[in-house]
């Protein structure tokens, strides 16, 4: 099958939805293609958002409403396997001819099993930040045996800033997510003890530093500077973790009931395939390069292909959505010539 449109937006996460809305509102024809059967991207997995504890579903709902009013044509359950600046091919074989493409294909989560020393997938009570969000959704935090954990360790930077797994970049949102999650645990289980193991606290956004202080002062969350080196299973599903407290320069061994790994953002493999087919440039991290970091952040090295959201680097929701607006404007300008 062959379809025709002005702009194809690839990826129906927050960035993709917003870009499609803007394009249609400006009167141009556009198709939004999403691999999953639902729109929303990663946000569907999050419970409440930093730094305001806004419910993630509120944000999605708002965006979907806007989408409905803009009459965007959506193709769900359709994976894009090939792009050029004038064509998108879907896994089904359908081809969409167009005059511009906005890539909003986002990021992948780092597979915590690769850091096998932490025992994810091997030990009972080692979970990831994504699993924890799922627990927040259900309203209970519990170990595999069903008990509420009394002592929880949260490890930052799993699969970020780690040369050993060839992920040199910072995933940006994990630090603040860890602070947010620590507070949520303390809210639900006030008697529990929570220890965050970090390398640096990167509290870059508005209200983040304040939240970090609140976590310490109001919720008594402990922050230890040092990476956990390994975990081992103890009887009754408890875990022993080894780390170094680099502020006191002492090795440290601790037993906890649950270990939460803050998994980072990884560039999807498909970026390399897209780059190969179109000549898009990639960063060493595997994310797609913008044409210019300051003035043309949503343009790429290929005219007619635009980018929005985390396809170029780890970003927050707000940043991804703002970029979507910019990308749709740039695409419009491009097709109007």
């Amino acid at each position: 099958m062959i379809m025709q449109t002005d702009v194809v937006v690839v990826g129906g996460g927050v960035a993709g939805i917003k870009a499609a809305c803007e394009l249609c509102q400006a009167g141009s024809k556009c198709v939004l293609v999403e691999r999953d059967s639902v729109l929303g991207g990663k946000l569907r997995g999050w419970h409440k958002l930093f730094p305001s504890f806004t419910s993630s579903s509120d944000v999605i709902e708002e965006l979907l409403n806007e989408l409905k009013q803009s009459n965007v044509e959506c193709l769900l359950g359709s994976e894009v396997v090939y792009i050029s600046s004038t064509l998108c091919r879907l896994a089904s074989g359908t081809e969409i001819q167009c005059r511009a493409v906005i890539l909003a294909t986002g990021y992948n989560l780092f597979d915590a099993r690769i850091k096998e020393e932490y025992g994810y997938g091997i030990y009972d009570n080692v979970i990831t930040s994504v699993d924890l969000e799922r627990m927040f959704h259900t309203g209970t935090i519990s170990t595999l045996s069903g008990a509420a954990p009394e002592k929880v360790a949260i490890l930052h930077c799993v699969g970020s800033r780690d040369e050993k797994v060839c992920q040199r970049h910072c995933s940006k949102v994990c630090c603040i997510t860890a602070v947010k999650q620590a507070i949520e645990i303390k809210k639900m289980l006030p008697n529990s003890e929570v220890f965050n193991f970090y390398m640096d606290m990167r509290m870059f956004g508005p209200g983040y530093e304040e939240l970090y202080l609140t976590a310490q002062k109001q919720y008594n969350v402990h922050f230890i500077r040092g990476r956990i080196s390994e975990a081992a299973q103890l009887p009754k599903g408890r875990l022993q973790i080894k780390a170094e407290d680099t502020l006191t320069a002492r090795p440290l061994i601790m037993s906890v009931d649950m270990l939460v790994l803050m998994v980072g953002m990884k560039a999807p493999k498909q970026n390399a395939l897209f780059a190969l087919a179109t000549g898009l440039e990639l960063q060493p991290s595997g994310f797609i390069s913008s044409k210019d970091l300051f003035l043309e952040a949503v343009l790429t090295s290929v005219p007619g292909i635009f980018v929005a959201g985390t396809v170029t680097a780890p970003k927050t929701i707000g940043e991804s959505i703002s970029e979507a607006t910019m990308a749709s404007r740039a695409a419009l300008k491009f097709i109007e010539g």
Partner: protein
Amino acid sequence: MIYLAPFTYPFIIGAAFMFLIVVWKYAMWFIDLPKEDVQKIKKGIFSKATLYSVWEIFRESLLHVRIFKRSLPLGYMHCSLALGWFMLIVVGWIETIVYLGNSFVPLYGHVFFRFFAAPVLTEHFWILDFLMDFFLLIVLSGVFLAWIKRFSSRLVGIRRTTKHVLTDRLAMSFLWFVFPLRLLSETVTASIYGGGGFLTGSLGELFAAFLPSQLLSSLLMPFWWCYSISLGGFFCFMPFSRYMHIFTEIPLILLRNWTLRPTLDEKSYDKFEIQACSRCGICIDECQLQKVLGIENVQSVYFLRDKRYHMLRLATAQNCLMCGRCQQVCPVGINLNTLRLSTRAIMRNIPSEQRYNYFNGIDRSCGEGRVGYFAGCMTHLTPKIKISMEKIFKAAGEDVWYADSEGSVCCGRPLMLSGETDAARKMIKFNEELFRKHKITTLVTSCPICFRVFTEQYNLEGITVLHHTQYIASILRSGRIALSPEECSYVYHDPCELGRGCGVYDEPREVISRAANLMECSQNREHALCCGGSLSNFVIDDFQQQKIASSVVEHLLLSGAERIATACPLCRKTLSRATERRVMDIAEIVSERLT
């Protein structure tokens, strides 16, 4: 006959100089040998080893059989130069005896025999003339190949040829001229006086027919002068160039057969190994740092070269995976990895009395049994392997003393690899005492790095040390565990430390074949590739390691296997980062198939 001609002086001076320097060098090296090595020499000198060495010297210093096995043209090049030259000397000696009987002939009389003999000889033995020309032709063909090798090494069977230092280039230039000049000198002599074999004789006739005799007579002395100068020049530079290997390989073969070896502590014997390197460059092609990453100037040939000339940099010494692939192919059999380790030790060893005082009295072991299990730090970072071993021990009904389940002192090899030999020895001592205290009779480890240091450096008398693949193979054979084979194919990746390091190749394969289908890739066993994750390289970064790993995975999967099996936690970790396919340690495969 009167042996007086000024043109021989360059040769005489060069030869005398070379002789003095070489003798002086060897004398110093022998004097500096440690007591144990002297003992070994005394023991070996009147044994069969000496006889065997003579054979080996003939085979390797003259015929170069090992280089032949590597590449025919390269072998021929080395053989023709060495054997050809050697035969020229031997036949030349016989020639003088045949013609002159037992009268005294000075050395240069032998070398320039044609010059002195041609005017006065009346009868000729054609067979001698033939042999001399024949061997000269052989040598010339070798020189020709050496020229070709400089222009295109591929034509002689290697991809890369060594980059040489100044003394090498000078010596080499003189050497290249020696034999063509000999040909010319003897030809001109033959053209004037007659004689010579099928080569010099026929060429001489040709010269005589076409060139005026006046010209030939005026060319005679300049050619012999040039020949003498090129010989003398070569001899002058020889002791300082790679050609020192020509002589040094001989004492090396003897010493090695008398069981002398380099150790972690640098010693005088090392000099024999270092200067026996011919800089043939065979080790360069073998090195994955070269092949995959394009890193030059760090391979064993360069390491030995830089060390010999005291220009070794830490970055060169440390840029090596210690995979042992070069050692495997080195035709001289130099212990390249040990030499690098002892060098690292000089550059990095930090003596510290207090550094590991906290070892005193710590013992975090648990369980009880005659069999001890030392998982090793790497295995602790790949807990699936550790859990699998625990399951296997349980299935076999083994009582096990777990040496390091709650933490331990490192086996010492990582520090040894980085050159911190003294610190490593402290750990070795601690662990030896720990093992003895718990009275184990068998020690099983999952890590080939630990396994190698246990077998090479530990004194564990009365304790059998096994890698877990060996242990599993033995309990499978005795029927203490049984497996239900799966319909799945594995290609086995030989870990460097287990394979080339400890010679364990068969047990891992035996175990895999009992659990699934075993497949092989072409570079396996002694020729296996290094996964790239080696603890010994302190220079390349993780991205470069990953690049090596990807190339290894690619090669392994050429076998057509569905999955990759290995027997080292570090290989397993490194390779799994480079592929989506399952990479499993043999212990994991076995624990999944236990019945």
